[in-house]
């Protein structure tokens, strides 16, 4: 079941420096929301606060509310939260284990008793990886290409049937062909799970996202339907950024 993610007056600071400033917007259930903005604008920090990985960094302070399916994330048990909110990282980070073990890692960690081969198959299918890897399930994940590794990470986070999946510039290490395959898998997940994608590739946002939020210097400038943002943004900053006039 996909869940709505609602961010209300979220502020995040590292060592007293405000990185995200009073941001409020909503990511609708089952849709793809892209967060765009220049490097260092706080979009990754924003994303990492949704599954509270930001707390692993020392002296990080999060204020405000993040609601997932009506529940405040900041008051949840982090492990239970991360079973609901999965994540794909910028660099593919498969574990040094077999492909199958990688997909089942979350299931085994949560000690869920279920039919493993079904989960492996359906997760890899949604990550557009099943046909390539059907007969290589017991090989080490580290032998895969970077693009396959990244889609394996998608499958890994899908396996525990999360309500939300966060993606932190998932295609930045990938070549164009792998990027297209990754986007294909994003399309196949749509509707089953809420997707939040941080990207600095605006074309990618345009291709995959239903909604787009533009963040600049830690502040939310604009959040709207992707078509509207790209065709006719409300704010002049957004237009400047999209047209590359920004310094």
């Amino acid at each position: 079941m996909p869940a709505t993610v609602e961010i209300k007056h979220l502020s995040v600071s590292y060592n007293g420096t405000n990185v995200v400033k009073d941001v409020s917007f909503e990511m609708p259930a089952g849709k793809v929301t892209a967060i765009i903005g220049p490097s260092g604008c706080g979009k990754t920090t924003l994303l990492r606060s949704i599954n509270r990985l930001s707390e692993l960094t020392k002296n990080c302070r999060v204020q405000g509310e993040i609601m997932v399916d009506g529940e405040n994330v900041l008051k949840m048990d982090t492990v239970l939260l991360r079973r609901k909110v999965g994540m794909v990282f910028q660099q593919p980070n498969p574990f040094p284990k077999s492909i199958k073990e990688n997909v089942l890692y979350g299931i085994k960690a949560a000690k869920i008793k279920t039919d493993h081969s079904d989960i492996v198959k359906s997760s890899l299918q949604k990550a557009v990886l099943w046909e390539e890897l059907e007969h290589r399930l017991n090989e080490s994940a580290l032998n895969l290409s970077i693009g396959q590794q990244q889609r394996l990470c998608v499958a890994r986070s899908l396996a525990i049937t999360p309500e939300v999946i966060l993606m932190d510039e998932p295609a930045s290490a990938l070549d164009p062909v792998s990027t297209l395959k990754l986007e294909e898998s994003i399309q196949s997940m749509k509707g089953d799970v809420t997707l939040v994608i941080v990207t600095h590739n605006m074309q990618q946002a345009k291709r995959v996202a239903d909604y787009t939020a533009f963040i600049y210097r830690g502040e939310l400038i604009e959040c709207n339907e992707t078509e509207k943002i790209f065709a006719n943004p409300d704010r002049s900053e957004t237009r400047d950024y999209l047209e590359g006039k920004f310094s």
Partner: protein
Amino acid sequence: MSNLFANQAPLLRTKTAPAAAALIASAGIIYGLVLCCINSLETFAVSFLAVLLAAILALWTFVRMAVKENDRGLLVTGAACMTAIIIVTVMPEGLPASFHVYRSFVAAALIIGLCVATLCSAVYRLLGSTPVAFDNSRYPILILPIVIALISYGMILFVLCLNGLPQISWQLISTPYDPANAALRGILNDILGTFMLMLLTSIISLPVGVGAGIYMSEYGGRIAGIIRFSTMLLRAMPVVVLGLAAYGVARMAYDTAWQGILAPDPTIMIGRGTFLLASAFLSLLVIPVITRATEEGLRSLPRDLREGSLAVGATEGYTLLHVLLPWSLPNILTGLLLGCAEVAGNVTVIVLLCGFGNYGVTPFTEATSLAHFIYKVMFADRSFRMSMGNYVYAVSVILLIITLGLTIVYLVLRNKFAERYRAH
């Protein structure tokens, strides 16, 4: 803008002079090394230095003529060579009878140093005087210490094997020592005892060391600081203090509930300890090594991997067991190997605890080890020295074989684990 390198001297084409200089210098290095062993060869030192000086000057002149370059480095080497001739000539043979030994060592050191310098210059010219040739020509400086180290190792091995190998027999390594029975004069229990010490010490120090390492890298804070400080203190402590403390514990254990666990049967000399007690004290030396190795291993884990595990809803504990520990396994193994080598060779900690190895090898019998055997022959019982004194070299060779085997096993395991868990 004109080319800055346009006026650079052309490269040297003919290579007779550098080749000759390189040959003389190489011969000189060998001569210097031999001179360290055979002092009387010192007679030829001055004449050799004169030949070397001639070679240096010839090379300098050659470079000067061929490419119009004034190689100042060669001039400095030549001047140093001249100084060396003066030093070796005027250095008195002196009043102490052994003074010529010192003079021959001084001559050897000077010759080796000068020859390495000359060899560098000559190789540089031989390789065509290019910038890359300059880098490559400095290898003699790096290689010489390695050569000297290898020669030293070789000599140690040679002496040990020459004396030890002929003494090793199946009877020696397959029978235990028995003072009452002249036919049973083997070192079986010393060999088994060494393994017993390594095994028990590993069992004690692995959980403690790995645990402390995990705590220090994962939690930090004040307690971690205290642990780090105390492990450093343990490493810095004079080991003989530990040895005395172990002896004290063994004495205190008599006639208490601990007798039989820490101290063997009281009919044996008071103060002797069991393998368990010896291992407990040896593990104080091993724990800091394993702790440090574990900590380093955990710290080298990529942040992404840990976060990847947490992000799919694994607990910290699950992440530790399934990601962090497999990752640092090669490091932990390194720590364990260093620890076992320490245990195999250590005498100081167990010097007062060990017996003669005639009571069998279990955790609760009197401790003994191969390293301690050598101590016993030299300093302990007279009758033991009479019967077993011939076997010290054999014992050293066996000890070497054990550590060699240990190292090979370690390398195989480490590579296997590193390939399996780290191939990023």
